[in-house]
């Protein structure tokens, strides 16, 4: 095992500028991607610690490690960081940047400078969000949803947090614009639409949502800030406004946003499963089109967050129907992934284990969503911890696990080094068990009727809350083990060749780590599909 430092090869060593500036001013998509990856992972760890603290507070009834106000600030900050600083940018901004250009045979994204600007907006948003916690009149306590009129009345630092979310939205829009343009204009010769890896398809669908839905969040947050600054409320009843309209505008963005979070994760899974089965993805076109269908249909269902809000029954009828229709493309994806396994040659590498856990957990999340989509059942389950468990099944058990899968799948490509597989298996086991215990218990206690956002609860909810907290400790152990293993692997793991997994997409045909401009002097010409494994061999490592 050689001990050459990480920074000695590929895009790490080639840069017009050296040192920190070589990174901070770089317009190279891989460097920006790695910077995103570092920040996003840090943010995830911060928010995960907040989540663990909340679970600790909820271990038994009563006030333990935090007061009600601290708890409210904690879940707000946990939500804002996890949603805006982790999940939304996690796969698109980090892995999208790292992989999109390589996978379509391009040298960079279409607007490299804009890409760097997106990153700076992301960082500025992150700094503002953190400032909002520690400065002013106290950490924001509105929940990440900023519901009016509470958000316009509370004395805490909501305006700064809203400003942060606004900037992060802007960053997300610019990334979306960049990706759509890149996919349309920079595909290599021979890279027809039918040869795009599924990951690219899902990024494409995601980018359109980012472009067309995110501005609605922007204007909504601006209106909340204006209401706080000028006291002139567009959602205030006394000024002819309607608080429920805020919820409409907010969810017009924030429901499609869950597809910004989940679609790229589906793309990751669609890459890993064929590679580890050595078989083409089942139903390529169905998968590609269902990605676009999910992106479109995701814009039609926002008000299913609002069945109990006092909106009209007719709206409940319409949105409930549309919600169930959106379930279909997701179901198709699950069936197609499983069919890909059929008569394949399945290797349970670490990325594959995360992918399989994704399928199961995403299925549980999706099926729980059916109960929430049905009007009558939702009336009972809405705003209970069932909802919290449900969206953690899709967002953490889904996107989070896909993010971990992507780390295990692609990190070796971008560092040139492999992590320890045995430890990766153990960490996966801990994560899988810890995750399911924690959130299954939360779902169960929600069905019992425990409302969400309660720092204290009645004694009848104690057993399940204790189970959930115990599960969270297993989960935490798994996270620590996984990150430590990946970090150690990145720094001094075994060196690997171009293609450790036997993948057939373009990124496995360039060195690990890839050089600046990805493909050397010759522009690549694509002659085969993304899942054509004939003649592709995995390198020994």
């Amino acid at each position, binding site marked *: 095992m050689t001990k050459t430092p990480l920074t000695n090869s590929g895009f790490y060593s080639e840069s017009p500028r050296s040192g920190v500036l070589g990174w901070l001013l770089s317009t190279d998509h891989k460097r920006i991607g790695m910077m995103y990856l570092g920040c996003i992972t840090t943010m995830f760890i911060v928010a995960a610690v907040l989540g663990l603290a909340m679970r600790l507070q909820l271990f038994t009834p009563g006030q333990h490690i935090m007061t009600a106000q601290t708890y409210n600030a904690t879940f707000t900050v946990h939500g804002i960081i996890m949603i805006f600083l982790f999940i939304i940018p996690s796969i698109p901004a980090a892995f999208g940047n790292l992989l999109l250009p390589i996978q379509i045979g391009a040298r960079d994204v279409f607007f490299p400078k804009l890409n760097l600007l997106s990153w700076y907006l992301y960082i500025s948003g992150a700094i503002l969000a953190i400032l909002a916690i520690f400065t002013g009149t106290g950490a924001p306590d509105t929940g990440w949803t900023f519901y009016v009129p509470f958000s316009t009345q509370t004395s805490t630092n909501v305006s700064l947090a809203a400003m942060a979310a606004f900037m992060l939205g802007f960053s997300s829009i610019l990334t979306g614009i960049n990706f759509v343009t890149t996919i*349309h*204009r920079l595909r290599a010769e021979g890279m027809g639409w039918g040869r795009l890896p599924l990951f690219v398809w899902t990024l494409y669908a995601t980018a*359109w949502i980012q472009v*067309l*839905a995110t501005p*609605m969040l922007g204007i909504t947050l601006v209106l909340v800030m204006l209401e706080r600054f000028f006291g002139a409320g567009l959602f205030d009843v006394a000024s002819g406004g*309607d608080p*429920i*309209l805020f919820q*409409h505008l907010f969810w*017009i963005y924030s429901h499609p946003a869950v597809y910004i979070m989940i679609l790229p994760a589906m793309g990751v899974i669609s890459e890993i499963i064929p590679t580890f089965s050595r078989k083409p993805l089942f139903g390529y076109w169905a998968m590609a089109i269902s990605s676009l269908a999910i992106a479109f249909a995701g*814009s*039609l269902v*926002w*008000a299913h967050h609002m069945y109990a809000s006092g*909106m*009209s*029954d*007719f*709206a409940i009828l*319409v*949105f409930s129907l549309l919600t169930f229709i959106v379930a279909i493309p997701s179901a198709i994806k699950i069936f197609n992934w499983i069919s890909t396994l059929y008569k394949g040659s399945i290797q349970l590498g670490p990325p594959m284990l995360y992918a399989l856990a994704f399928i199961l957990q995403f299925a549980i999340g999706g099926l729980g969503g059916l109960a929430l989509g049905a009007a009558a059942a939702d009336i009972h389950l809405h705003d209970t911890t069932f909802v919290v468990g449900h969206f953690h099944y899709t967002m953490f058990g889904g996107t989070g696990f896909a993010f971990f899968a992507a780390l295990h799948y692609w990190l070796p490509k971008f560092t040139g080094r492999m992590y320890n597989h045995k430890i990766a298996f153990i960490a996966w086991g801990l994560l899988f068990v810890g995750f399911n215990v924690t959130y299954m218990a939360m779902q169960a206690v929600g069905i019992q009727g425990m409302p969400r956002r309660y720092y204290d609860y009645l004694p009848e909810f104690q057993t399940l809350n204790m189970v959930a907290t115990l599960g969270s400790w297993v989960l935490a152990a798994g996270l620590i083990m996984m990150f430590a293993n990946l970090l150690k692997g990145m720094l001094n793991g075994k060196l690997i060749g171009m293609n450790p997994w036997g993948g057939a997409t373009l990124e496995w045909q360039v060195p690990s780590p890839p050089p600046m401009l990805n493909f050397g002097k010759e522009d690549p010409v694509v002659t085969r599909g993304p899942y054509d494994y004939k003649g592709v061999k995995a390198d020994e490592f």
Partner: protein
Amino acid sequence: MSEEKHEPVPYQTFILIWVALIILTGITVGVAQFDFGAVNIWVALSVASLKSALVLFVFMHLRQESLLFKIGLLAMLIILVIFIGLTFTDVLYREVLP
């Protein structure tokens, strides 16, 4: 990447469109002097849409751009109609308790 060059649009075309836009503005203002009830708002919106189309297709050269640009615009408009339309399923049918 090959570069498609667009032919310059003659000055006269732009000026003609501008005249049309001014006339359409005059029509909207004129119609607004008479009360036709709900018809007013629809006339105003139709004229505004017509004006927008002129600006989009001529001033903004959409006429000369490829199909992709037009599909993008269409997608945006569809999403817009969905956002507005579905919000109205709530506000138009809200039950007011006696």
